[in-house]
């Protein structure tokens, strides 16, 4: 599971799919956070948040195009379910923002005491 941490304290701000964490990072500010649980110490540098989000958006668009083109109702329903699951990722990231901001503020206040 991917994690998002405060860049200053390493406090945990959120957990979820890589796409959810990238979306959350967008809202908190990329410079204020670090990603965890997405690499190993042996191949640092492979995780590319921009590529993750680009792939996620391309996949959503691609599935929408296939759903619009197909005439098979079962296939259409199945793909629309996948698209709905993608929408939930966006929703989850939005829901996590308030808690993550608060956790970050508290951790930084603790350090400054």
């Amino acid at each position: 599971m991917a994690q998002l941490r405060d860049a200053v304290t390493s406090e945990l701000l959120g957990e979820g799919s890589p796409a959810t964490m990238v979306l959350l990072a967008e809202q908190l500010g990329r410079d204020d956070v670090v990603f965890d649980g997405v690499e190993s110490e042996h191949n640092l540098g492979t995780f590319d948040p921009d590529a993750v989000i680009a792939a996620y958006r391309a996949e959503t668009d691609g599935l929408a195009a296939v759903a619009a083109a197909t005439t098979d109702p079962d296939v259409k329903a199945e793909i629309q379910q996948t698209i709905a699951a993608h929408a939930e990722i966006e929703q989850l990231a939005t829901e996590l923002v308030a808690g993550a901001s608060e956790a970050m503020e508290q951790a930084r206040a603790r350090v400054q005491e």
Partner: protein
Amino acid sequence: VTLVGDFVTGQPLPFQRMRQLLADSGGVQEGVVGAGDFLVTQRAAGANMSVDVAPGLGWIRIDTGSRNGLAHVASDAVENRAVAASHVSLPRLDQVVARYNDTSIPTGSGNVPTLEVLAGTPTSGATLDNRSGHAALPNDCMLVRDILVPSGSTSVINANMRDRRPWARGAFAVLTRTAGTVSTASTSPTVIDATTLQARFELSGSPARITLNAVGWNATAFDGVTTGYFIDGADDGTTAPGQTMSSSASAFTNAGFTATIVPVPGSHTLAATFAALTGGTARLNSATTTPLRMIVEEILRPNTTNN
């Protein structure tokens, strides 16, 4: 003596050779035996700056000296160990280790194994992934858990720890997804299901076999699907070991694969992936009768040939 035979009349058989014999008998490496052995968790009686270590059995490689083999250790109760107070402004990566002690080798003090928390050096930006500032692992120690101690934190929680227990008889797991056809329009490898077909494994560096049992389903002719795996979120260069396509619509075809990797020792995330072959949609069937199965198996044998 440079050549010895064990269990020979008149020849001594010291503890060291007994341990080496156990190590050489095959099928065992440094690690824990059972799934819950030496599992470290946040303090059950309320999270604080300490952790609980579950009872269990394990084998610890004796690094001190040479040909000292594997030492068997056992713990029959939960042990609580303190974690040093957090640094005021920098995060720190600590390690929980099981140490084998033997005054005849010697390493630690006494002859009783110990469970210890090795504090790292507080380091800006430390995470569980980069392990910045972690202490070097001493001889005769088996790493069982990484602990990230955020600056100013006052308790250790499970989300800030990573299971680092190696597996004495090799890592092995069957990951299964039984519900819902999965589909993708992407021609780049995409994780099939991050919840059921992706997991973290502690691998020793021995070869590991990855198998995917999968059935592709062509809703329309020539949809096609390729399957493969990610290690730590990326292809390792071995793309699409599994591939299928049918000229018939509504056709089921085998899309599984078997691949063998030789990983760098350490903690790795492995995930099954799939991609569309064409501009169509890749689909993998997933049901109770035709589940998607990813099997990871460490192979405890030398990776070599005869000269």
